[in-house]
């Protein structure tokens, strides 16, 4: 069975590459560690959700007590290798949270990018095309600049901002239950421009927190925590599963919406689902890592050249390649003499590569 073999071959290979990059990255840092120990410590850190507890907690906000639902997930750890204590601590507490978050963010951005490029039938589309990144950026920058006025965590504000922006673009572009792709694209550009202006104004008003805001905008993975991984990983995996279920519909949509309808696709509903899922997964990534460019643009594009346009295989391979790419670039970003925001590294590597593809004219083939 050719398709199954191809899918397993590519996914297995990329999964192995991802693990290799993760171990290599965990071994690189100020303290030199034995690679075998790092590999074992990495395996030890793999947790599988084993139980779920939902409870109600009395939370207080502005003097009023509100019952808040809490979700507690307990994890089981299948691997228990013997690893020296320091190595285990450095790998698990210091390096792995950042690496894991990088992998999740790369996974999320690349899968959303693959979907958006297919959705817009345009190789220049990336996950931020419908305003998600700008919305997240505004939410984050506003929280940094006016911490009192906006009583939300930075990540929550960015996540909410992203979804509000995406929904606004969708609502603007929709008329009589139809959302023409071209209108969506233009509305996205307009909203991004508008939000860009608001962000600039907010930065002007940011005063002393300007540094932090600008740093956030550049896209970064430092100060990552396991808590962020625990929220974004399930979200990314679930939405990815949803997107994968629509992979075949996406293939058919690439031949045109009218044509898709004649082979039984409920076009507008499918478009809504695809937009919603890819906005959520992008919002989650941007909320924890800021605006990291080019992962969602370059990775799906390169994978399309390698595996072809079939989203049933393009989507999983892009996601895994995105994770691998971001972990690798982040390792570069933090191992230089001065640590750089990873967004700078992805753009510095991504843009010339993209130009190379552009001059080879392969871009036009999508």
């Amino acid at each position, binding site marked *: *069975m050719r*398709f*199954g073999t191809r899918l397993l071959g590519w996914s297995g290979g990329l999964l192995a590459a991802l693990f290799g990059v993760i171990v290599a990255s965990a071994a690189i840092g100020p303290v030199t560690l034995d690679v075998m120990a790092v590999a074992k410590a990495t395996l030890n850190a793999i947790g599988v959700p084993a139980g779920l507890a939902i409870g109600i907690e009395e939370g207080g906000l502005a003097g009023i007590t509100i019952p808040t639902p809490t979700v507690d997930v307990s994890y089981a750890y299948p691997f228990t290798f013997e690893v020296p204590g320091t190595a285990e601590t450095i790998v698990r507490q210091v390096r792995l949270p950042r690496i894991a978050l990088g992998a999740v963010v790369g996974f999320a951005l690349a899968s959303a990018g693959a979907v958006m490029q297919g959705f817009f*039938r345009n190789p220049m589309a990336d996950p931020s095309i419908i305003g998600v990144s700008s919305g997240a950026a505004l939410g984050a920058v506003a929280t940094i600049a006016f911490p009192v006025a906006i009583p939300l965590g930075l990540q929550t504000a960015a996540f909410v901002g992203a979804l509000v922006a995406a929904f606004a673009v969708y609502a603007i572009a929709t008329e009589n239950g139809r959302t023409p792709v071209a209108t969506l694209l233009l509305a996205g550009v307009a909203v991004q421009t508008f939000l860009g202006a608001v962000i600039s104004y907010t930065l002007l008003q940011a005063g002393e927190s300007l540094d932090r805001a600008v740093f956030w905008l550049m896209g970064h993975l430092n100060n990552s925590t396991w808590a962020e991984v625990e929220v974004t990983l399930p979200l990314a995996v679930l939405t990815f599963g949803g997107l*994968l*279920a*629509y*992979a*075949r*519909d996406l*293939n*058919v949509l*690439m*031949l*045109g919406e*009218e*044509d898709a*309808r*004649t*082979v*039984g*696709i*409920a*076009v507008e509903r499918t478009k809504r689902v695809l937009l919603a899922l890819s906005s959520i997964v992008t919002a989650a990534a941007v909320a924890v890592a800021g605006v990291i460019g080019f992962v969602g643009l370059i990775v799906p594009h390169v994978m399309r050249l390698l595996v*072809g*346009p*079939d989203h*049933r295989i393009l989507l999983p391979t892009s996601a895994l390649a995105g994770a691998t790419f971001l972990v690798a670039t982040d390792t570069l970003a933090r191992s230089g003499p001065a640590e750089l925001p990873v967004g700078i590294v992805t753009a510095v590597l991504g843009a010339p590569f993209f130009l190379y593809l552009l001059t080879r004219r392969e871009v036009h*083939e*999508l």
Partner: protein
Amino acid sequence: MTEHTITLEAVSTALGGVDVLEDVSLSVDRGEFLGLVGPNGAGKTTLLRTINGVLEPDAGTVRLGDEPIDRLTAREVSRHVATVPQDTSVAFEFSVEDVVRMGRTPYRSRTDIVADDADRDAIERALERTAMLDLRDRSIAAVSGGERQRAFVARALAQDTPALVLDEPTASLDINHQVQVLELVADLVDEGKTAIAAIHDLDLAARYCDRLALLADGCLQAIGDPETVLTDDHLQPAFETRTAVTPDAVTGAPSVTAIADPPRDRDAHVHVLGTGPTAARAITKLWQAGFDVTAGPLPTGDTALSVARELDVEAIESPPLAGLDEDTLREARERCHSADATILADPVIGPDRHVLDLADASDRPLLVGTHPFDERNRAGERARERYRELESRVTTASIHGLVPAVVESTIPATAPADD
């Protein structure tokens, strides 16, 4: 018992405030190939889009089998009707087989990602039926236009529907591929499929469709056998041009030729003697050039006679395979005599040698011969001598040079010298 696979009841649709379809009712039976013909912008594509569910009509009902289409989901509609789109250009590197596999979408659940046996069978059969097995792994963007069209027909077959909708399946194909695609559709219809196709080329539509529906300005102008629909009475108002409908020499199906209305500014009367294709072309050319044309005698069933009828050219008709009676002959002689010029278009010299007599009766005979005389002579050596003598006496012209030659020879008649 006939069952209607597709039924339209008083369907009206407006796009952007413009009525595109007005009160169209028609039905297509099982095992029937209906061709939609009509000028650009007549609403052919719109009509097809109401049948495959892409467009919801503003008024009226479309039924697939017994079900009104608005009660069916997209998936259910796509199990009734498969569509071969007009624009099959694909910018993506999908393989031919990938495209055909998309035809199985209506039968697949969201969770099974890999094709099952029923899918594989359907894909295999569709590729085989369309002779695309060898090309299955080729990129859809890399195959020729005809092959791409066949790939989309294969996709429609994989969809396993009772009805096929084809929007201009032959547009932008060369004649060989046009015929290939339509032969394939006609075969499928013979095997029990129902097909409705918008076809630009009236001759192809007449040749392959069981019935034709003529649309103009969003209204159904005529529906029925190709012979009853393709008449100048129907076509002229629809296409806003005069047409000549003659049986195609090869297929016998009606063949339509659009004719620009001639300028009516020549007074000269030209009579055409002779039969067959050369006479037919002479009649058409002279009529188009604006001459007052008469023709005959022409035997019933002759090409030239049907052309003359289409153009409203007055023609003397004679019964086929019989000698000319005295009345007919007299009428012809008068025409030849009164005409400003008489064209001898590949005249066949029968045993009675009437043609030669009539030529002698004309004031200004003009000979157009494209076939060797021996093939036209049925009256022996004597006739040959008379023909040679005629040839030496009269002007000869090629069929292409006919109009200038006639203009030249009729100038004295239209502008007589006074002094």
